[in-house]
């Protein structure tokens, strides 16, 4: 069996152009542009003219591709679903933070 060693990239360190974002997410460019127009996907602040996108946008675009094909959602519904997923992720991060701060039982169960 071939064993390959491979190069890994931090998802968080990605910076993508619009067409790279479309390619990596599998979303048609037209759909991606509509999601940009309605604010469901946002570019990162960049000094250049060309919009650049980070990990959050790639995550959202990939979710949008799945939701669109699996639920046959239109742009409005897609935008709504993405903003709700965002909120869920935010709440989960808060929950993770609170859980980390919550003291364990003392004495610890062996």
């Amino acid at each position, binding site marked *: 069996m071939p064993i390959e060693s491979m190069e890994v990239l931090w998802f968080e360190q990605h910076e993508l152009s619009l067409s790279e974002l479309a390619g990596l997410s599998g979303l048609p460019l037209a759909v991606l542009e509509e999601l940009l127009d309605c604010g469901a996907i946002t570019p990162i602040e960049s000094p250049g003219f060309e919009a650049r996108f980070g990990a959050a946008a790639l995550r959202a675009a990939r979710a949008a591709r799945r939701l669109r094909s699996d639920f046959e959602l239109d742009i409005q519904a897609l935008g709504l679903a993405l903003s709700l997923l965002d909120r869920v992720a935010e709440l989960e991060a808060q929950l993770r933070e609170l859980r980390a701060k919550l003291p364990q039982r003392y004495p*610890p169960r062996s």
Partner: protein
Amino acid sequence: MKYKDYYASLGLERAASEEQIKKAYRRLARKYHPDVSKETGAEEKFKEIAEAYQTLKDPEKRAAYDQLGSHAAGQEFEPPPNWQQQYSEAPFSAEEELDLSQLFAHLRGGGARSGGSRMSMPGQDYEVAVAISIDEAFNGTQIDLDLSMPEYDGQGRLHRVPRTFKARIPKGATDGQRLRLPGKGGKGLNGGRDGDLYLNISLRPHPLYRANGHDLYLDLPLAPWEAVLGTSVEVPTPGGVVRLKVPAGTQAGRQLRLPQRGLPRPKEGHGDLYAMVQIVVPGAVGDAERELYRKLAESSGFDPRGHFAVEAGHAH
């Protein structure tokens, strides 16, 4: 080839109408879609549902599937003679690794007709959950991945190929982070790009540390007299033991910050480690110790609940 019962996957009778198929799919997709479901095994379940729906929603594919006859799920079977010529554009081998879904991906029907089998198709992206320990996140680690991926051979036939990867998880990984391995997903077809492999990292629970991003939290139990008088304690961190000064009068719940002693960040620096003060009491005390506590109780003027009376008064 192993038979899959697509009707059973959707909880349907074989005579189900198109409308019933759509309804069943929508109901199950809502329940098991990996983006919305928290149920364990949801992803696998959803793949099964989606595969069934892809075939049954298309009247031509459904007719081809019905022609395969009805078998028990998981039972070995062969498509009837001439079935391939009648329905399929791509040649396929009837070897065991061939998956029913791959057979149907090649059938004529709904939309895919125009390009035929020479159409360029990007490879599939895969997402894999990887759990690592806090010590592995601290030092970086190498993991083995065993995946089974559909691939085309030289004759354009599909096989399920077991692939083993070694992937280096660099320092800086933490809960909820993702890594992308470009081109390591499914192979593209006819010049389409190879898919990517995404690793979703999670941290396994640790007996001492709890992670939030790159910060770590550790419970620091103190005896009552240590909290009152102050002390200096040894605190374990993933990078080794450090000495921490606990100031006199330290209250329970206070967070003592040890800068840069958390998990390493991807580029540079570390998160912090927070020692969370707990004041704990011995489960049993001897006579001499109890006598000392009694003397303390008699001589202390400390009223820990002084604010009760004040606040209760305000409420009226």
